[in-house]
């Protein structure tokens, strides 16, 4: 191909600004284009013919189409963190300073040494990888190390462009949109549908993937209401954009259709400029929910497969015509049109009319209608009927074509007619309706023998096809079907019919049905899938080897699996397979199109989540923790202080100091993250009694009780204390991580299982800030600041709950202990949480009160044998954790029955124990318990669950689950941790290490 810019004049090259100059580089070389050009049109205007290399054989490839169906012309845009590979030159809008590189080539796109891949020729056919590389098999060892070695090399050669190695600096956005009628595609059918729908008062969103909406109208030679189609479209679209009910989105591709009329569209907000402005997103995902949709996505021209059809210079005929008419660029100095239908002739005529030399028109058909013959004459081309192109020649780009006789009915190639010099073959093999979106929903297409094409099948969702997408070709049909589809969509939306005018059309009326010719089988490499180098021989080989179902064909040859998803190749592949099987095309089937319609940036789908994966959940004291140098630790969505490290302290040193301070004096910890549920109602007691495994019916007012909650299958689900605040009012606390699940569990049982119980459930996790004050001096601290309530053992006994006041803040104080020390949990309104914390810190100052984090909290409860998340792992029962005493036998509750199953009562179940290091070595998290030494550990008999250094015992200890553990206290075994390279001799002990009688917390 040696394209060039035509003399721009009125009516030619309307898409580009005739007087502009845009500088850009391709592989480092400077070129000049015009505003409105795509990279493809600009490269073509500059005579660049080889733009890319194919995937497998690295064959030189040029520009094949003018839109998103492009299989060949893939380039890499930008560099550094914005590097973007595999961008279709046919869609990339030119801007000043655009830098583009070719890809998948070494050293350059014109000289690609990786093209040696094609030398093995026929050996490198479909199925090649499956049949070899197994390598020799050695006795006793058949692992395919040979393949593992070869695979490294193959991976390096495969792939197209290179991705960025640094984070994308741009932002992405999202918009949730609702409308009555979504119109996909702003060509004649889409414009007509949108106008009609808007006229009925519908809220309309009209999307078009191009920078300039209008679709085929942008290059139609017809006059509409007496004006050029381009002008007409411009005016109508401007009117639509002004309409208050209509949103027109250009550069917006509707990528996929989901259930219930939900669509994902991606708007390329700033891809046509060098980089997004500050605060601007690069792309925006539109999640569109509509009541109905009009799908007017047009049709995609398909080629005819012939020998040598991959040379740069061979392209789709209508695309060639569009380059001429829209961009004012001639695709070559001498063009040869090869077609099986009338549209090829119109392309020839329109090109010739605008100054392009059309050498020949080759049509497989013996005869064509008179108006078409006239169009051919207008083009001044030599006409070959009943003929086909059977070979091409040229060094890298095209320089000529062999024209031979061809019999359409038999597919036979006859004598050679003429060798013609040309640098562009514009080929048209008919049109395939673009029903990708509807196919994504699994709607089976139906074959139209007349059009030799599949049309969309019945609708699962509310959508209506219009225009070429629905097989309504030509402007007249497009406008009319757009209106009709809009009327149906309006009915779906419960709106009236509206009204609109179809424009008066002056121009050709032609037949779009092609001759049923998909391939010219004349020997020689004929490519079906240009990007993946799948040849017609590969398809036939797949057939010989039994890969005859369409899906097998696709998977075995990789046909249609390239970045273009086979938009221009699937039909040809299918037709060749059908011929090989001797069956009609519809019996061979069609592949289902999979979303998205065109490749979609991952960042765009992530949208606003890119750079902001999930919101953090913060306690009222968060800023204080951070200011005090706490390491913040992700616990579900919450951030919690892990430990407050003083300078030079490790986390371990810090938590040991903090835990020891609690045991010896007093500490305070932020427990605001605990789940808190307000349970009220006359049946609240009964409800809790059914939910918890232990009794709750008789809990007195002003008392708290520790409760166990089971899943219905008998496994422990969550635990926590529940406080009876009034006769019919409770405050339930849950684990931090379990809060949401517990709420769901309660609501399910209240709504679905026992709807007759009057229970109100409200999450109050965010209402209450919570601070636990723990340690032998805890009471002294509270004494110094609490009013309205005594804190002595008499006033506030263990498990007692009281309303009180601290420095003017109304609080609830509960005498609860997770640490085993004398402790109080103080709750107040979250807005006062920081103030409460400050008051407690101040009151505790003379007792050297120490804030402690999650690690110390955990250490204290491990020493005490209290279970938490690691032990409540969804596989443990109350019995396993030594909590059998909390399983009531006097009542039924959720999980009671299945807890009775045999397997839950076997003696060798994993049971909770503690272990302590015998020789001072550190027991590390994730250890397993074994009998053997480091070299021969033997099998796992259990594992550690929560591990720490115990300041109380001054050694490493751990809670653990051990087979039959409850009967094994005193046994000496090993905690082995090969992945952390430790093996520690340990003694099995009771999990209640500190103060087993509970004297301290009751004191």
């Amino acid at each position: 191909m040696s394209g060039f810019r035509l003399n721009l004049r009125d009516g030619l090259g309307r898409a580009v600004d005739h007087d502009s100059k845009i500088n850009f580089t391709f592989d480092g070389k400077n070129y000049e284009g015009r505003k409105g050009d795509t990279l493809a049109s600009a490269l073509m205007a500059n005579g660049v013919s080889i733009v890319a290399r194919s995937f497998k054989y690295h064959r030189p490839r040029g520009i094949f189409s003018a839109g998103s169906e492009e299989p060949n012309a893939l380039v890499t845009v930008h560099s550094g963190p914005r590097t973007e590979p595999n961008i279709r030159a046919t869609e990339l809008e030119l801007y000043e300073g655009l830098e583009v590189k070719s890809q998948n080539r070494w050293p350059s796109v014109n000289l690609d040494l990786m093209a040696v891949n094609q030398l093995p020729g026929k050996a490198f056919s479909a199925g090649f990888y499956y049949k070899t590389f197994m390598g020799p098999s050695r006795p006793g060892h058949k692992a395919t190390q040979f393949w593992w070695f070869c695979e490294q090399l193959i991976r390096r050669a495969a792939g197209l462009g290179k991705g960025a190695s640094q984070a994308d600096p741009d932002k992405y956005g999202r918009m949730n949109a609702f409308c009555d009628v979504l119109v996909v595609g702003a060509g004649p059918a889409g414009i007509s549908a949108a106008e009609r729908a808007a006229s009925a008062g519908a809220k309309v969103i009209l999307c078009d993937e191009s920078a300039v909406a209008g679709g085929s109208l942008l290059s139609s030679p017809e006059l509409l209401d007496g004006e050029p189609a381009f002008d007409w479209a411009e005016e109508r679209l401007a009117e639509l954009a002004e309409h208050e009910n209509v949103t027109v989105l250009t550069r917006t591709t509707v990528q996929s259709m989901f259930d219930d009329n939900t669509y994902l569209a991606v708007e390329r907000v700033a891809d046509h400029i060098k980089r997004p402005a500050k605060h601007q997103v690069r792309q925006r995902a539109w999640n569109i929910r509509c009541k109905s949709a009009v799908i007017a996505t047009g049709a995609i021209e398909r080629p005819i497969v012939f020998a040598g059809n991959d040379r740069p210079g061979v392209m789709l005929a209508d695309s060639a015509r569009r380059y001429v008419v829209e961009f004012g660029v001639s695709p070559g100095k001498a063009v040869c049109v090869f077609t099986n239908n009338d549209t090829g002739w119109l392309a020839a005529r329109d090109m010739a009319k605008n100054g392009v030399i059309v050498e020949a028109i080759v049509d497989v058909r013996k005869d064509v209608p008179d108006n078409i013959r006239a169009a051919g004459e207008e083009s001044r081309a030599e006409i070959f009927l009943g003929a086909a192109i059977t070979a091409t020649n040229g060094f890298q780009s095209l320089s000529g074509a062999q024209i031979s006789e061809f019999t359409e009915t038999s597919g036979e190639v006859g004598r050679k007619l003429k060798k013609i010099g040309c640098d562009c073959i514009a080929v048209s093999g008919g049109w395939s309706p673009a029903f990708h979106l509807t196919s994504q929903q699994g709607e089976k297409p139906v074959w139209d023998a007349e059009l030799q094409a599949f049309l969309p099948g019945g609708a699962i969702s509310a959508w209506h096809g219009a225009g070429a997408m629905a097989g309504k070709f030509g402007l007249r049909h497009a406008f009319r079907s757009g209106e009709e589809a809009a009327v149906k969509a309006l009915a779906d939306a419960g709106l009236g019919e509206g009204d609109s005018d179809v424009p008066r059309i002056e121009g050709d009326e032609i037949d779009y049905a092609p001759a049923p010719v998909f391939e010219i089988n004349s020997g020689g490499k004929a490519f079906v899938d240009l990007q993946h180098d799948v040849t017609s021989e590969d398809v036939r080989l797949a057939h010989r080897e039994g890969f005859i179902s369409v899906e097998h064909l696709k998977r075995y040859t990789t046909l249609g699996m390239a970045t273009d998803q086979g938009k221009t190749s699937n039909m040809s592949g299918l037709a060749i397979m059908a011929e090989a099987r001797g069956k009609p095309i519809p019996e061979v089937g069609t592949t289902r199109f999979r979303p998205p319609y065109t490749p979609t940036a991952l960042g765009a789908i992530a949208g606003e989540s890119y750079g902001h994966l999930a919101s953090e959940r913060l306690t009222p004291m968060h800023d204080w923790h951070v200011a005090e140098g706490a390491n913040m630790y992700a616990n579900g969505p919450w951030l919690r202080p892990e430990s407050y490290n003083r300078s030079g302290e490790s986390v371990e040193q810090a938590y040991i100091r903090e835990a020891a301070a609690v045991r010896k004096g007093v500490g305070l910890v932020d427990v605001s993250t605990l789940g808190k549920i307000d349970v009220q109602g006359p049946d609240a007691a009964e409800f809790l009694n059914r939910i918890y495994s232990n009794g709750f019916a008789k809990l007195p007012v002003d008392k708290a009780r520790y409760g166990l909650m089971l899943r219905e299958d008998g496994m422990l689900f969550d635990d926590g204390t529940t406080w009876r605040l009034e006769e019919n009012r409770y405050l339930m606390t849950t684990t931090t991580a379990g809060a949401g699940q517990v709420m769901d569990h309660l609501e399910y049982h209240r709504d679905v299982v026992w709807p007759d119980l009057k229970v109100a459930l409200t999450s109050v996790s965010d209402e209450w800030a919570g601070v636990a004050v723990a340690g032998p001096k805890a009471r002294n601290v509270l004494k110094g600041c609490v009013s309205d309530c005594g804190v002595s053992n008499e006033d506030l006994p263990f498990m007692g709950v009281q309303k009180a006041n601290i420095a003017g803040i109304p609080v609830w104080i509960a005498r609860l202990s997770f640490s085993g020390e004398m402790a109080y949990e103080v709750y107040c309104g979250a807005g006062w949480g920081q103030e409460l914390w400050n008051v407690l810190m101040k009151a505790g100052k003379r007792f050297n009160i120490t804030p402690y984090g999650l690690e110390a909290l955990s250490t204290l409860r491990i020493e005490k044998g209290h279970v938490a998340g690691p032990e409540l792992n969804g596989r443990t029962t109350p019995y396993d954790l030594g909590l059998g005493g909390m399983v009531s036998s006097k009542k039924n509750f959720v999980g009671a029955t299945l807890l009775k199953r045999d397997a839950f009562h076997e003696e060798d179940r994993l049971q909770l124990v503690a272990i302590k290091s015998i020789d001072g070595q550190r027991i590390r998290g994730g250890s397993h318990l074994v009998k053997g030494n480091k070299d021969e550990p033997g099998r796992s008999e259990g594992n550690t669950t929560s591990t720490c250094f115990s300041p109380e015992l001054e050694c490493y200890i751990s809670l653990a689950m051990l087979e039959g553990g409850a009967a094994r206290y005193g046994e000496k075994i090993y905690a082995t941790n090969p992945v952390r390279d430790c093996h520690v001799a340990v003694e099995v002990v009771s999990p209640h290490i500190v103060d087993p009688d509970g004297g301290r917390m009751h004191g």
Partner: protein
Amino acid sequence: MKRAVAPHLGTIKMRLTCPFCGERDHQEFTYRGDASAKRPAIENDSIEDHRAYVFDRANPDGDHRELWNHTSGCRMHVVVTRNTTTHKVTGCEPVGPWAKTMKARS
């Protein structure tokens, strides 16, 4: 710790009609499975009855009556009738204490 570090970052999107809030994305709801699984009465402690309730599912290919909780809305439970092959929703009925006082919205 078997609990996921992060909350579930998303659920699903079809459109369900909550009897209280109206039509919303599925994403606002929590799926709770087959609505035909009925818990045995609180007095019933037959292992077989409980096993069937907890584990046995018809898992139909076609219309499925299933429970959803409008977790991010009014928090009502609804029984949705949905075809598991086409995903077409043909019913959203309220359940729970308020079911009797309100009609399914369509």
